[in-house]
C-alpha cells in the first residue's frame, strides 16, 4: 500500500518511477537499474501494465520474453469434464490461437518427454521401424492449414447459447510435419495393407482404424501448430493429422501405427462415433460434412439499426467451400456472401455479408455448399434422412439466430422430435 502511494506521488511530481525505468531501454542503459531496484523488483512481481486515460503521458513496460493478450481482451475456452470449446464468437478470422484450440481427451493430457518419445510403425510392412521425434523432424516437412472438428460437435436446447456452446469443438491451425506417405515409403508397405491402426500414448491408449488411402492422400504426422511445437493438449510431441476426418481419428500423442488388412473395430469406432440412421447404426463416417455458422451477430451480442457486417465461418471435410449464402428473412430468400481468399481445402473459410438492418424482428441464417455440390441441410432434413433418434454425431444443421426488435440476438433452438 505504502509503495503504491509512494509511486503515485513520484508520477505526480514527474519523477522517474520504477516502472518507467523498467520500461525504458535507454534509461536502463544509463542507470544502474539492478542495484537501485533489486529489492523492490522482487517485492512487486508481476508487473502489470497501468491503465490510464492518456497513454501518451506514461512510458509503458518494455520488451518481455513472452507476450500476453491485452488486459482488455479475455477470450477463453469453455471447459467441461471431458472437453473445452473454442470461443468462436471472439475470433476475427479463421486461425485459432493455439491456446484456444478446442480440447477433447479421454484420459487427461499426458506429459511426454520428446527426447524419449518414439513412433513405432509395424504390421504389414517390409521393415518395422521406430522413429524418434528428432528422426521425424529430419524428413522433408510440409505445412498445411486445416480445421479439426470433433464429430460430436452439436448442442442445442436453449436460446441463450453462443457459437462456442453450439459448436465450439472446431478449431483451425497451421500444422507442420511430415507426410505420412513419406514414412510409409520409408518402412515399405505391403500390398495387403488396407487399413492402419493409430494409437496414442495417453492413459486411454486411444486407438482408431484409418483407411490406407488417407495415408497416400493427405495424412500427416505433425509436430508444430501455428509455427511452434504443438500444445500438450493437442498431442505434444506428435499427433496424426487427417484433414477433414473426425477429430477423434487425429490421434494425439501418437506412438504406434500398425498396418492391417482389416479394421480393428476399436471402442471409439463402434461404441462411440457411430449413430442411428433409421433402424441401422452407421459406422465409419470419416469426413465431416459441410457446415457454417454466423459468429457475428450471435448471442450474447446486441446490434443497432443500420449497416451490420454479418460474418462467420464455413467448412467442409470433403474439400473446399464453394459458396456461402446468408438469409436475413428467416430463410425465405438467400444471398451469396463474400468469401475471404484464399479458400483452402478442408479449412475454415471466413465469409462476410453486409446487411442494412431496419430494426424489424427477424432470423438470420447461413448455409454452405461445398465443392462436391453438397448443400448444408436443415435439422428437419437430417431428421428426415436419418430418423428421429439422431444421436449427437455428424450433425451439421443450419444454425439460425433470432434478431429481436431491440437488437437482442438469440440462438434459435430447434426440436428434433
Amino acid at each position: 500500500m505504502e509503495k503504491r502511494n509512494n509511486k503515485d506521488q513520484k508520477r505526480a511530481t514527474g519523477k522517474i518511477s520504477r516502472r518507467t525505468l523498467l520500461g525504458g531501454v535507454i534509461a536502463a542503459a544509463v542507470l544502474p537499474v539492478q542495484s537501485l531496484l533489486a529489492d523492490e523488483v522482487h517485492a512487486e512481481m508481476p508487473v502489470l501494465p497501468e491503465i490510464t486515460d492518456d497513454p501518451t503521458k506514461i512510458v509503458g513496460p518494455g520488451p518481455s520474453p513472452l507476450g500476453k493478450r491485452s488486459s482488455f481482451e479475455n477470450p477463453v475456452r469453455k471447459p467441461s469434464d471431458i472437453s473445452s470449446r473454442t470461443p468462436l464468437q471472439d475470433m476475427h478470422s479463421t486461425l485459432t490461437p493455439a491456446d484456444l484450440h478446442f480440447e477433447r481427451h479421454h484420459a487427461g493430457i499426458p506429459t511426454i518427454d520428446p527426447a524419449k518419445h518414439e513412433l513405432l510403425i509395424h504390421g504389414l510392412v517390409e521393415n518395422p521401424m521406430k522413429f524418434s521425434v528428432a528422426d521425424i523432424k529430419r524428413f522433408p516437412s510440409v505445412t498445411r492449414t486445416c480445421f479439426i472438428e470433433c464429430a460430436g460437435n452439436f448442442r442445442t436446447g436453449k436460446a441463450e447459447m453462443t457459437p462456442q456452446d453450439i459448436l465450439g469443438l472446431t478449431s483451425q491451425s497451421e500444422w507442420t510435419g511430415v507426410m505420412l506417405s513419406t514414412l510409409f515409403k520409408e518402412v515399405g508397405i505391403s500390398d495387403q495393407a488396407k487399413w492402419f491402426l493409430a494409437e496414442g500414448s495417453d492413459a486411454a491408449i486411444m486407438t482408431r482404424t484409418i483407411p490406407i488411402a488417407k495415408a497416400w492422400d493427405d495424412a500427416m504426422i505433425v509436430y508444430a501448430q501455428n509455427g511452434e511445437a504443438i500444445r500438450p493438449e493437442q498431442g505434444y510431441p506428435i499427433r496424426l493429422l487427417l484433414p477433414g476426418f473426425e477429430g477423434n481419428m487425429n490421434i494425439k500423442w501418437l506412438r504406434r501405427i500398425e498396418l492391417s488388412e482389416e479394421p480393428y473395430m476399436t471402442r471409439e469406432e463402434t461404441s462411440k462415433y457411430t449413430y442411428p440412421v433409421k433402424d441401422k447404426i452407421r459406422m465409419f463416417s470419416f469426413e465431416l460434412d459441410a457446415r457454417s455458422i454466423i459468429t457475428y451477430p450471435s448471442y450474447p451480442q446486441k446490434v443497432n439499426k443500420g449497416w451490420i457486417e454479418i460474418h462467420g465461418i464455413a467448412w467442409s471435410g470433403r474439400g473446399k467451400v464453394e459458396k456461402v449464402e446468408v438469409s436475413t428473412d428467416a430463410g425465405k430468400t438467400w444471398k451469396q456472401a463474400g468469401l475471404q481468399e484464399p479458400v483452402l481445402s478442408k479449412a475454415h473459410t471466413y465469409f462476410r455479408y453486409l446487411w442494412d438492418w431496419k430494426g424489424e424482428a427477424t432470423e438470420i441464417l447461413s448455409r454452405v455448399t461445398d465443392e462436391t455440390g453438397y448443400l448444408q441441410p436443415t435439422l428437419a432434413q437430417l431428421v428426415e434422412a436419418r430418423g428421429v433418434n439422431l444421436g449427437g454425431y455428424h450433425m451439421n444443421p443450419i444454425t439460425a439466430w433470432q434478431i429481436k426488435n431491440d437488437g437482442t440476438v438469440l440462438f434459435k433452438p430447434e426440436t428434433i422430435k
Partner: protein
Amino acid sequence: MNKKTVLLLACPLVLLLMSLKTAFIPMQVQLPLADSLKRPAKFGFGRKATALEIAAWDIDVRPDGKGLPAGQGDVKKGKILYGQKCAICHGVDGTEKPGIKLPGNALVGDTSATSKPKTIGNYWPYATTLFDYVRRAMPYNLPGSLNNDEVYSITAYLLNANKIIKADVVLNAKNLYKVVMPAKKLFIMDDRKGGPEIK
C-alpha cells in the same frame, strides 16, 4: 541453358507473380517441384524395431481374434473382479439406475436394439472390442493394471450379465472372437461419398 539455370531464372518471376496474384494461386501448389526430383527412395532415418519392442506395445485385438493373448477367464472370477475394480464407477451390477449419474457408462442392459442406454448388450458389435478396451484403458483410475486372465474374466462376466454368453463359459483366445454380438447385425458402413444427397 541447362535445367538448373531455367529454374533459377524462373524463380524470381514466379515469386513476383505470386505476390501480385496470391489470392488466385491455388494453395495446393505448395511443394517446390525441385524437391521431388531429388527425393531418395528411402532417407535412412529411424531404426529397425526389435521384436521385443513391438511385443511390448502391440496390444490390439482384432475381430478375427488376432492379438488375443494366452490366458483364460470365467464369469465367477469376473464378477468378483468387477465388484472390486469397476462397480464404483459403472454401478454394482453395471446397470443405470434412475436418478443416479454413474461416473462411467452403464455397461449392462438387455439385448434389444431400441432399449436405452446404449450398452454392451444392445450396442456393441464385437466382443473383441470389450477385451481390447478394458485391457488398454480400464479401470479408469488404474489403466493397464489388469493381467490377461483378469481381463478374460471381466469380459466373461460382462458378456454374461448382458445375456450374451452362458454362466459356465470359460473365455480364451480360441473362443472369445467367436461370440456373436446381438448388435452386430445393426451396423452398416457409411457409404456416402459427398455430392448433393442428404443421407
